[in-house]
């Protein structure tokens, strides 16, 4: 019984973090076709914001304010990254310079974290506390993060389906040329994509700070897990990301429990490889048609 609780709660909790990373990647991908390698480092930046302010005695109200502030800060930072990344792209996807610039951005952010905070892992006290289930204590943050993921999912769906900006951003994904011809302000919309992606990852990082690994070198692991979840669910498909994250999380916990901790890093990548070999477009993705 305890095994089930641990596996499910921890798996879904950590999986929710992966889902949120994947969803923020998808937002950016849908708007610009760019996959941001620096996304994991932005998650850590969000966590660092919380680290700098929160200590054991901080009230929950301040905590919420910090989370919001962290989200906004990361949103602005990603907007800045967007400005620089998009600046020289002629057509936003066909040049792979963004592969280099996002990786380079990742290195730059990591070095800033290193120079500012040092190399040690940063520990944030768990203000929201823990709850007990079947004799096992788990942090409240796990179900809260799952809730955040679900709220984000519906929020993004509402945004893309019911606001002009959101609809315009969806149009970018479906047919860039048509959107341009229809007079959509492409660059602005793409920057908005960066900004929204940043808000989402920032709020995740700031909120989940006590339960994620915060250091200069931990960003890439979250980026890879987020990619894995996004790709497994179908790149660009938010429902896929929502489901794939907890699945990955639970799978990892099961692998650790039964096979040992050395499979922690390998399990998600093995699942990714299997899904890609069997169904490359992802479980919920659609095979992109091509005109011949």
């Amino acid at each position, binding site marked *: 019984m*305890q095994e089930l609780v641990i596996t499910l709660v921890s798996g879904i909790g950590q999986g929710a973090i992966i889902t949120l990373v994947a969803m923020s990647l998808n937002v950016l991908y849908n708007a610009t076709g760019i996959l941001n390698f620096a996304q994991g480092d932005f998650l850590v930046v969000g966590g660092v914001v919380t680290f700098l302010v929160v200590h054991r005695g901080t009230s929950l109200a301040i905590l919420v304010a910090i989370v919001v502030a962290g989200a906004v800060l990361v949103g602005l930072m990603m907007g800045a990254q967007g400005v620089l990344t998009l600046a020289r792209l002629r057509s936003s996807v066909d040049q792979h310079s963004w592969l280099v610039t996002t990786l380079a951005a990742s290195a730059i952010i990591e070095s800033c974290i290193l120079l500012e905070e040092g190399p040690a892992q940063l520990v944030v006290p768990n203000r929201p506390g823990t709850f007990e289930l079947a004799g096992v204590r788990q942090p409240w943050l796990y179900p809260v993060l799952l809730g955040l993921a679900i709220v984000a999912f519906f929020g993004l769906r509402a945004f893309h389906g019911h606001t002009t900006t959101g609809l315009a951003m969806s149009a970018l994904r479906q047919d860039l040329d048509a959107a341009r011809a229809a007079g959509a302000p492409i660059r602005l919309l793409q920057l908005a994509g960066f900004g929204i992606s940043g808000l989402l990852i920032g709020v995740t990082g700031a909120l989940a700070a006590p339960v994620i690994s915060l250091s200069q070198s931990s960003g890439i692991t979250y980026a890879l897990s987020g990619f894995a979840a996004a790709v497994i669910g179908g790149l660009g498909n938010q429902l896929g990301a929502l489901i794939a994250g907890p699945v990955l999380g639970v799978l990892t916990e099961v692998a650790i429990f039964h096979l040992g*901790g050395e499979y922690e890093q390998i399990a998600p990548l093995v699942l990714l490889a299997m899904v890609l070999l069997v169904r490359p477009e992802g479980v919920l993705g659609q095979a992109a048609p091509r005109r011949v």
Partner: protein
Amino acid sequence: MTHSRATRCLGAAIGLMLVATAACSTKKPSNNTASSDGPLKVGLMVPLTGNLAQPGGWIQEGVEYGVKQVNAAGGVDNRKVQLVTVDTAGDPTQAVTDANKLINQDKVQFIIGPITSDAMTAVLPVENQHGVASIPVVGSAELTPSKMPYGFSMLLNAADQAKAMVTFAQKKNYTRVAILHDNGQQGLSADGALKADAKDAGLTVTGDQQYSVGDTDISAQALSLKRGNPQAVLLFPTDGTDVGHVLQAMKNLSWNVPVVGGYGAHYSTQIAAVSGPSSMANLTATAYAPFGACPGQSAPSATKAFLSGIKAFKPNAFAALALDLAAASVDSVSIMKQGMEGAGSTSGAKFASWVETHSGSISGLINPSVSASQSSHYLFGPSDMVLVRPGKQVSTGVYERADC
């Protein structure tokens, strides 16, 4: 055609750049070996970036303090020690390049570091070829004196620690133990040693799990080990933050068995930051001997002098400093001085043979004794380590010994 002219220019530019950089580096006058004038250059190879940057920083701070102390006492054979620091970044290829630079360009005559076994394996050929002695910070059993003739590690050997941990478990009459370790090199070496020692001592190992450095959620591993119902957990971490997460996971599972930890499990400040001070009630850990004492005893004066000295030297870093690792680093500089002066030479071979035969007469500034010999190139052996209770500090940085 302008096209070919342009690429010709480009080619010339590339070639020029390569020549220029090569030439720049050889502007330094080429010294022959062992000049006995001028400062004694000592290389420090530690990771300042990457996963192990934190212990790298502690060792750097200790060594810098040690250099200051040695220079204040006149230096080595009246030569001031000059430290040349390089960042290995946890990359063994980088370590080779760094060692090459230190030895061939900076002309150092001694090296402190590197701090991982694979980096040490990487730099050994260069060091051995040039006869440079070193004090690395490694714990792998594969680095025998025949492989590492001029190197003496300042770290508590993983194998020695494992033995001490298993002996303690035996003394406490635990017959069933579980092993939990991290996926770094020390952890993996220790895992093998723990399994072997436990088997020799007749203990049953009920489970063996590992976690990645940096993980915050170790509940799956803890639960898996709990299922085997051991009487104690033998834990080999990287540092206190890991230990905190392990203890937190065990607390969440309401699983309260004694934990016997290897080096790093006594970093009580780090542990408390993660799982709270009360989590260490059932924790025992290995530490360098000068940092363990019984209640009522006062800490050795050398330890106290070191603590106040390094606090004044690096006030900002003091709170987070792993004091006994820094102390061992300080002692490395002092041991280097004693060895060089005793052997009358900076040559690696002479240094090594002097240290092997005279280790009884060497003492560090803080650690009183050194136990290297022809068969073991570990400066601090089983007699230089103790098991302490990290939950109970007798005085700043000094913990209550488990055998009090």
